[in-house]
């Protein structure tokens, strides 16, 4: 009796659910129709993991990166949750693309479902907006430089360009203000828009019902089954598989994190995440004054046509044979997008080549911007590196403290050294190696992760930025530096390519190993950098030091 009463009380909730579950489906609706609900599942995952990430994340350029490291290394399941959020973003783009392809080829965008399609295209744009605002948030190298490229695209617009840039950056340069506005968009504005659109989209889908495959709207539709249980089971299966794959990727690979953003870096070649490769490639195809074609006109035209597709293509037929023109164009566009994406993924690897050039160990696959300092830190702790590399006791015959590695070493050299300590550090060519450091048999990835972690250790007070860009040193400076090297008797202690005495460190490839600014400070004040060193403080003036550094940095 009581049970019956309650059933009636909850009828306003249970009745619509029953109607929802019992929706009749036309013949032919099946696995292909699961993409939308899989997409919905990834949206739910993003909402949940996003809320969790926001609990520890700080949208402030000073500490954003540190807060990500904290999530990765110190919060229970932090690494997995950030990983799921990262890979689910990619999954969303893939699923929305497939979902749109399915809708397109089935002609499901046609009357009377125009608005469902329009909402779907807007949803696609919102998802791309999420992707763009999201990858700035870690404030690593990729975040900084790839977003810079993205903002630059906004500046390509005639007349309005510079205002758009200011608006996107929240000022005249990328800063905390950029980060906080991207964060606000990413976690407040876009989610609200997304949720409203998703609700609208699903309402329209349900109102009109699934499109009967291959049938015109006015044809008699044969309903063969209901949403519950078969279709719901198919939807659940696909969503479940998606979650399993995401968890695997998140736990096994983790989300990438590069070194903390360094706006002064001149070697880093930014690459966006894969889903922007097509746009990225368009930017590269159209250069100079034609840039606007790749940056604005082609993408703009593409999305306008996409948005208006149901109003442009008014042919009511849904059978493939009766829509040759539109389908051919659709296939062409799909191939075009896939081709641009693939092309974009192959080109632009100059980033890797540039870093490896002249590196101490250039044979291996060292180098990539895909190193993860968080994993490096975990490794650093796991191998107990600090047991020997103790800043307090550094000195003669004691391993160096690493508290300013980030001011000292270059990434490729350090990664190479960590992978093969004995191959890199020789007293003289072909003599017994002097590196006391054990070989930990790190993989190239581990060595790179560790190196990128060590580069986050900086003492910027001790090594203030030198007000001279050595990359712009001309050949006169290099020649002058080489002469000074002899004049000051540096070769009395240092060997370069077999010339000179081997009392101090060999300098044959010092340019690949040490940063320009570190060399500068070393010349200016050897004792303060390496306490107890026998290196003379020659009291050089700034110009001589600059020339010497300009010379040494060419030794690679």
């Amino acid at each position, binding site marked *: 009796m009581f049970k019956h009463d309650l059933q009636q009380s909850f009828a306003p909730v249970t009745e619509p659910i029953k109607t929802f579950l019992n929706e009749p489906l036309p013949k032919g609706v099946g696995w292909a129709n699961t993409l939308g609900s899989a997409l919905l599942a990834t949206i739910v995952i993003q909402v949940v993991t996003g809320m*969790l990430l926001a609990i520890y994340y*700080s949208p402030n350029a000073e500490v954003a990166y540190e807060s990500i490291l904290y999530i990765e290394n110190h919060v229970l399941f932090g690494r997995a949750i950030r990983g799921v959020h990262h890979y689910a973003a990619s999954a969303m783009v893939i699923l929305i693309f497939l979902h749109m392809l399915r809708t397109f080829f089935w002609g499901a965008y046609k009357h009377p479902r125009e608005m469902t399609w329009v909402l779907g295209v807007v949803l696609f744009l919102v998802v791309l907006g999420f992707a763009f605002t999201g990858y700035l948030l870690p404030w690593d190298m990729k975040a900084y430089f790839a977003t810079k490229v993205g903002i630059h695209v906004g500046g390509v617009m005639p007349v309005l360009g510079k205002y758009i840039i200011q608006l996107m950056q929240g000022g005249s340069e990328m800063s905390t203000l950029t980060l906080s506005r991207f964060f606000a968009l990413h976690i407040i504005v876009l989610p609200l828009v997304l949720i409203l659109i998703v609700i609208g989209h699903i309402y329209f889908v349900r109102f009109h019902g699934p499109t009967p495959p291959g049938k015109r709207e006015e044809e008699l539709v044969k309903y063969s089954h209901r949403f519950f249980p078969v279709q719901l089971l198919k939807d*659940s299966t696909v969503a479940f598989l998606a979650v399993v794959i995401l968890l695997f990727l998140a736990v096994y690979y983790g989300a990438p994190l590069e070194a903390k953003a360094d706006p002064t870096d001149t070697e880093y070649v930014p690459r966006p995440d894969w889903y922007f490769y097509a746009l990225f490639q368009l930017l590269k195809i159209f250069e100079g004054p034609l840039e606007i074609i790749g940056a604005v006109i082609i993408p703009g035209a593409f999305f306008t046509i996409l948005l208006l597709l149901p109003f442009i293509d008014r042919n009511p037929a849904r059978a493939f044979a009766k829509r040759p023109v539109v389908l051919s164009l659709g296939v062409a566009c799909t191939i075009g997008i896939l081709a641009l994406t693939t092309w974009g993924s192959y080109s632009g690897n100059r980033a890797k080549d540039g870093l490896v050039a002249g590196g101490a160990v250039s044979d291996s696959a060292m180098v990539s911007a895909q190193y993860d300092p968080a994993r490096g830190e975990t490794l650093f702790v796991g191998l107990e590196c600090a047991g020997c590399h103790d800043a307090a006791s550094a000195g003669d015959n004691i391993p160096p403290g690493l508290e300013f590695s980030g001011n000292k070493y270059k990434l490729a050299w350090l990664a190479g050294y960590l992978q093969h300590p004995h191959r890199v550090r020789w007293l003289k060519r072909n003599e017994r190696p002097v590196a006391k450091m054990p070989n930990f048999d790190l993989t190239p990835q581990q060595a790179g992760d560790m190196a990128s972690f060590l580069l986050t250790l900086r003492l910027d007070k001790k090594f203030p930025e030198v007000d001279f860009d050595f990359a712009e040193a001309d050949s006169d400076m290099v020649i002058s530096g080489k002469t000074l090297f002899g004049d000051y008797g540096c070769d009395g202690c240092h060997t370069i390519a077999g010339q000179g005495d081997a009392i101090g460190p060999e300098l044959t490839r010092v340019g690949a190993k040490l940063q320009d600014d570190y060399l500068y400070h070393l010349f200016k004040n050897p004792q303060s950098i390496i306490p107890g060193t026998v290196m003379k403080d020659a009291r050089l003036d700034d110009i001589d030091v600059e020339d010497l550094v300009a010379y040494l940095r060419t030794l690679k």
Partner: protein
Amino acid sequence: MSNPIEMNELTSRRGFFKILIVLFNGLIAAALAVPGLGYLLTPVFRKDSGAWISLGAIEKFRANTLQKATFTYVSEAGYTRAEKNGFVWLKTSAGDSPDAIAFSPVCSHTGCNVNWHASRNAFICPCHNGTYDADGNVVSGPPPRPLQKLPVKIENDQIFVQLVA
């Protein structure tokens, strides 16, 4: 009429699908909920190690008098470190083996900072007039517990206090 069939719901195709649907969606929910809960509860399992904070030399303080001992300490919260100011109510005793007691200024009622009123020989909380005697015991007002006594040690005539035991 329908009962025998419903009894076999588990083995029927429809019933089996129902179970699979619940299973798959339940696993999805668990895959989010379990790590999510761990993530949320991280601070609960974290133990703050109580560092010893120096209050300075013992002769800086007048013996047998309750007084405010201020200090600056580095507070580490997750990925941030900040210098913070703090204080305790301190009473030292001179002699061959000097000693000290430190009270946390945090009222046990709602956490306001209590003040020492020498004239009334009492700690009085500004928020709800909670009153404690010189030993930190509740005299009147709403506080449920005495003031917290903090661990103190004296080394080389320097006083150290531990904020988190």
